[in-house]
């Protein structure tokens, strides 16, 4: 049996605390008088119980915790739909230039021209990439981009005096699609997909009427396939007055190949933390700009970055706006990273991204097709979905395979998504991985398929090399322990 990869370390920072130890140094207060302007009634009565540690305690503790994680920098991370590509180091240096990172959001426009220029130009670049007329950079993540997009659609219908109450979403969609749509005040109607994850056009047509505000769809779909009849679908929707929304989670497949706007989409969001290389950070921050066609422009979130002559400004006078999504202008630090990336790649580089993402996914799919059932026949786009239904006959589930991969030095694919595929393993290699890495991963997957037949217990036992073994989820939910109490 393999040994644990990281040395066992089981401390929380609170458990390192020693009364009186100090990890900071501030200059002495150089103004006369104490804070006697704060009356006693507002003051804290019991000091907050926080760790008391030295700076080196902090460094060693968090260094050790970091070693209990897999990241893209250290491991292949084939998490489908998440586009776990290399996050360039140059992006980090650029986002940390003092003029960006130490800039206050309410600095006068005259004092933030560089930042406004970058936002204006990034908006134009994203518009070109998606074939859209305008982009709002404000949404903080994909789900907030969805909310903004659906609210703009709602405002558009309302401006035309139309009362539409439903939004159609395929059963293969990401969970945020129905959640954001419901938050925007719509009833969510699920429409069926074919076995290949494509839209059942007849089923869609049956649902399309004057009560439907929008159809929301992911392209390529969550099975990794391009929707071959997409233009027919958007035309059909428009003929019924229905707006069409594209979830841009899978945009990495079509850069410079096809554009949502040209396909007939009215709205599309971008996940800068997927396609445009901003780091995932263990769960964010992301950025979810939303692109729209001209008829939705009046409804954009405020403020909008505008260019008056050679001067950039934040335009607040937008009476039909859906409002604001964040207090300030968007996750600017992420915007700097995405801008840096697009400028690094250029048009040919971005096209090569998608070509290589598609090549890598098809290569993995081909190498796995003997040992796993494919959810849909190839060729795929940037990701492929395989099913572990064959392995399940031996009692080995998609989750078991995911855990065994951790032992073999890989993060796991997305599991049990899309929901329409039994025992789904959704694999997105991305363009930044080499053939050697893909071969090593495929070898591991094939090894696990063999183990499922010959030594299923080995797979059930996994993982054994990680800092902890399988965890008791039921206990965590039944007896919630959500903070350290000593």
């Amino acid at each position, binding site marked *: 049996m393999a040994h644990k990869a990281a040395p066992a370390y*089981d401390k929380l920072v609170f458990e390192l605390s020693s009364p009186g130890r100090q*990890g*900071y140094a501030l200059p002495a207060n150089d*103004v006369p008088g104490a804070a006697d302007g704060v009356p006693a*009634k507002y003051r*804290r*009565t019991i000091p907050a119980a*926080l*760790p008391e540690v030295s700076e080196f305690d*902090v460094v060693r503790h968090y260094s050790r915790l970091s070693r209990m994680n897999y*990241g893209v*920098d*250290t491991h292949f991370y084939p998490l489908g739909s998440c586009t*776990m590509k290399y996050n*360039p180091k140059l992006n980090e240096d650029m986002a940390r230039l*003092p*003029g*960006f*990172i130490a*800039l*206050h*959001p309410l*600095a006068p426009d*005259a004092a933030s021209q560089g930042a406004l220029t*970058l936002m204006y130009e990034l908006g134009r670049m994203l518009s*070109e990439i998606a074939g859209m007329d305008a982009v709002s950079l404000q949404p903080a993540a994909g*789900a907030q981009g969805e*909310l903004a997009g659906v*609210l703009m659609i709602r405002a558009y219908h309302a401006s035309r005096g139309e009362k539409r109450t439903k939004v159609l979403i395929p059963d293969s969609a990401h969970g*945020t699609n129905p959640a954001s749509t419901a938050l925007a005040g719509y009833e969510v109607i699920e429409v069926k997909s074919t076995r290949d994850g494509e839209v059942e056009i007849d089923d869609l047509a049956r649902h399309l009427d004057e009560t439907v505000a929008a159809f929301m769809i992911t392209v390529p779909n969550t099975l990794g396939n*391009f929707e071959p009849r*997409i*233009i027919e679908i958007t035309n059909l929707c428009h003929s019924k007055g229905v707006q069409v929304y594209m979830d841009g989670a899978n945009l990495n497949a079509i850069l410079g190949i096809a554009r949502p706007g040209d396909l007939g989409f009215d709205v599309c969001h971008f996940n800068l933390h997927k396609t445009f290389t901003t780091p995932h950070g*263990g*769960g964010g*921050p992301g950025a*979810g700009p939303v692109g729209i066609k001209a008829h939705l422009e009046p409804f954009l979130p405020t403020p909008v970055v505008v260019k008056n002559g050679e001067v950039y400004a934040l335009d*607040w006078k937008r009476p039909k706006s859906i409002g*604001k*999504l*964040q*207090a*300030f202008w968007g996750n600017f*630090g*992420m915007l700097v990273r995405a801008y840096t990336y697009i400028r690094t790649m*250029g048009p040919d580089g971005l096209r090569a991204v998608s*070509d290589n993402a*598609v090549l*890598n996914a098809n*290569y993995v799919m081909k190498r796995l097709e003997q040992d796993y059932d494919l959810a849909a026949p190839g060729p795929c786009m940037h990701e492929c979905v395989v099913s572990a239904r064959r392995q399940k006959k031996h009692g080995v589930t998609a989750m078991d395979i995911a855990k065994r991969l*951790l032992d073999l030095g890989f*993060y796991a694919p997305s599991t049990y998504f899309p929901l329409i595929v039994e025992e789904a393993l959704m694999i997105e290699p991305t363009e930044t*991985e080499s053939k050697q890495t893909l071969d090593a991963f495929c070898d591991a997957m094939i090894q696990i398929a063999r183990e499922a037949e010959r030594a299923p217990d080995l797979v059930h036992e996994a993982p054994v090399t990680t800092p*902890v073994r*399988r*965890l*008791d*989820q039921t206990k965590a*939910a039944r007896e919630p322990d*959500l903070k350290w109490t000593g």
Partner: protein
Amino acid sequence: MQRYLANTPAEQRAMLDTIGAPSIEALLARIPAKARLPRALDLPAAAAELELIREMRALAAANADVNGYACFLGGGSYDHFVPGVINHMILRGEFFTAYTPYQPEASQGTLRTIYEYQTMMAELTGMDVANASIYDGASSLAEAALMAAAVTGRSDVVLAAGVNPLYRRVTQTYCDGPRIKLRTVAAPDGTIDLDAARKLVDGTKTAALVIQTPNFYGCLEDIAAAAEIAHAAGALLVVAADPVNLGVLEAPGRLGADIVVGEGQGIGVPMSFGGPSLGVFAAKKALVRRMPGRLVGATVDLDGQRGFVLTLQTREQHIRRAKATSNICTNVALCALMATIYVATMGTQGLIEVGEQSAAKARYAADRLTSIPGVSLRFPAPFFKEFALKLPVSPDRVVGKLLKQRILAGVPLKRFDRALGDCLLVAVTEKRTRAEIDAFADALRKAVA
């Protein structure tokens, strides 16, 4: 070859041979011709690393950052000191380039830091539980309004006029779909008019009373009095508070708050022109199953060893879809990590010192600035580290003049409230020196003369 791409032409050829396809183009055959872009994208040509660094430095240099300017701007983003150790730690690729911890065995680092973060936020706010983060203070407040409506089954949310108007606009956007009505209680003296609040908070309709303290004008609100009004009507009290102040100011949970939200930018997150930020969200234990966002819980592994997992996920969109408590998925975990390391580094005493110095320097600045003829405090209520000044000349003109002297003088309030067109909002953190404050006062004296 582009340096972020891995496969050489020879490797591409080998892969295509394995696949059995003549070209990459052949793999794209499912995309109909009329769906294809018939030209290259119209974008600037690729820039080499050195070229791009020059271009980006020029853009960055066109901004007035706080390294070269004395910053007295606040209004929701504050120039607090960030110890250097934080950046070094978050840049470890294992933290930085990890995804949401869906495979807990390979994500114990992230899960542990979130559990530490939840503990710290619960302690600072005086609440039972805190989640793993929301995008920013404004969207946290919006989520609190939605949650209060869901918990109480009521349709109105009453906001004090002192709540940051940018937060109010975000809350309005979120409440549009669910048809939650926002009502406002005036703050004629800078803090909530408690009598007016008592009249407006309704025993059948009001889901929550929302206050912010210190509020947008910098004034301290009476949390306990607001709690009494809310609870008498069966409504929740939502308090927006800045955790960096909570070393000195009382924990809202000890004064009756049911939900505490806040902007955590001040605890270790760079201003970065307003984002990414850190939405703090904490609540009473009884409300945990209605909370938005991710929660990390402690449990044990097969060997009985302590471990951590994402838990109570049946609240979330990937399981509950249209019926989820919130649509949030990606949050701001890395900013929560910055906050965790900040709080660990500063500790109990450090946060007290940051708060005391900020308050003392704000007091000193207010005294100096209001000694200038024609300049006065707009509101009589006690403030903490921020205050509204009434000026005898246009605040926009003052800001423009002082910018030339490398002073970011404050936020003109005209954009937020026309009735405060003659006011400038001034914030003072522990970073400001006596010399900077004195220079500000001298410059303002000349600017209004």
